[in-house]
């Protein structure tokens, strides 16, 4: 059963040093506010799991929260590289980053297996690619009925899943709509969960392609307006493409990055202050 609590309290109670954590949101509804709270609370040695690391993990990696990254596509979409991710992989700064690399289909099915309490998932993939040479968590498996050989990948079972959604009701049921990606599976695969939402409402309206995460499947729900910025929340605010472009020079330089994190994440109280602080520097268009 979800409790509706402040984000600071939720992160303090639910995320521990050394945890494996999955922040999900496929371009849409990326939980930036929760990630910043993790950075502010200086959580460390985290295994970060996410299909598309995006800026959210570039920031957490650069801030030194991560020991390992499990992922399938690491870029700044439509812009270029994730420089903090590359600096950690290529140069070990601020600390070495172990990586475990899959395809999207592999990651998605690993979450499904975790959500289903199965130790592995099966798919048609990886054969003939070089991924099995560099990733240990891929193994052949034979169909007991047809003898056909397929590939197995182990379940993802993060200690904590963190997602952002549009709305919660007063009982802590959560509604998200638009592109909902892998969020349900991430939450269901995890031992504990935090959901940030734009707002709490008395009742959900029917929406196209709406997904409900029932309260009984969740632990903490925190209200954080604009909590997915600079990604977007369908029917609330658009993606700030300009921020994604502006991130490129910030992330490119170690000192510039550290100064940015200090000014806009570590040096502020919460996500509302973060938004004010980047707006004051002209980094926000909205």
């Amino acid at each position, binding site marked *: 059963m979800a409790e509706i609590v402040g984000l600071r309290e939720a992160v303090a109670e639910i995320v521990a040093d050394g945890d494996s954590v999955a922040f999900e949101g496929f*371009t849409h509804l990326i939980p930036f506010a929760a990630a910043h709270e993790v950075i502010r609370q200086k959580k460390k040695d985290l295994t970060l799991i996410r299909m598309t690391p995006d800026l959210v993990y570039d920031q957490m990696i650069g801030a030194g929260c991560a020991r390992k990254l499990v992922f*399938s596509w690491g870029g700044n*979409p439509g812009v270029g590289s994730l420089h903090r991710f590359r600096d950690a*992989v290529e140069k070990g700064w601020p600390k070495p980053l172990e990586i475990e690399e899959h395809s999207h289909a592999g990651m998605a*099915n690993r979450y499904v297996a975790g959500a289903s309490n199965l130790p592995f998932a099966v798919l*048609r993939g990886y054969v003939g*690619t070089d991924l099995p040479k560099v990733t240990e968590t891929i193994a052949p498996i034979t169909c007991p009925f047809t003898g056909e*050989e397929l590939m197995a990948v182990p379940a993802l079972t993060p200690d904590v899943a963190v997602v952002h959604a549009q709305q919660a009701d007063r009982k802590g049921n959560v509604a998200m709509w638009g592109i909902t*990606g892998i969020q349900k599976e991430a939450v269901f695969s995890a031992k504990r969960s935090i959901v940030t939402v734009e707002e709490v409402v008395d009742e959900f309206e029917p929406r196209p392609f709406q997904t409900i995460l029932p309260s009984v499947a969740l632990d903490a729900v925190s209200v954080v307006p604009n909590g997915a910025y600079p990604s977007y929340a369908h029917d609330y605010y658009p993606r700030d493409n300009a921020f994604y472009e502006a991130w490129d020079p910030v992330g490119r330089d170690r000192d510039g990055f550290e100064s940015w994190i200090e000014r806009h994440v570590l040096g502020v109280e919460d996500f509302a202050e973060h938004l004010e602080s980047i707006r004051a520097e002209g980094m926000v268009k909205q």
Partner: protein
Amino acid sequence: MSGNGYTADEMMSVAASRELRDGVVCFVGIGLPSEAANLARATHAPECSLIYESGTIGAKPEVLPLSIGDGELAENADSVVSVPEIFNYWLQAGRVDVGFLGAAQIDKFANINTTVIGEYDEPKVRLPGAGGAPEIAASAKEVIVMLRQSPRAFVEKLSFITSVGYADGGDARGKLGYPGSGPSVVITDFGVLRPDPETKELTLVGLHPGATIEAAKEATGWNLKVSDALETTAEPEERELRVLRELKERTEAARKAG
């Protein structure tokens, strides 16, 4: 810019868009493939159903998405489903007629690298990685690849095989047991390459207007074979160019506003 007012990139997008037949289900990669697929939808293929890996089926974007999960894609889609459902019930299930992919590097058997340049553990360039490409290459009934031709992109040996084309050529792909039949065409800024029916080696079968065999060979890191029946790509029609440019202008405007 070629003589009559279009760029090689525009020719590439137009040529790629022409490969998409109307009514097909097309799994679209972001960037150049998305541009070509939406050009096709806005011209000769209004009934093709565009699928993006974020879960949108029958997406009808008015502007090109910057990322694979822009709200624009969900807005007028026939359906929006979860990521597992897109990969399992649509792609792996063989419901995708055409996979439309970009690449950082490609080899003569149309295998693709989007992972690293150099050694995996000490990469010269760390690329984004696999994303949806390996399974698109595996399971789409047919695959269209588009990328700009250069010796760094068209290489004798890939640093890393991220997605399988024809493996070592011949019937090697068949032995991997994938449902899809592999890349049917590679569209570049120089011309059109198709796999040899027997050896599966990519062969230059078409040149865009103004391009030469010599230039195409120089832009290729292996000894590029050239078809005896080499064709010349039809120039972009006025409508194709107009629609493409309007699409890109709308996209640029939305990006600046957004």
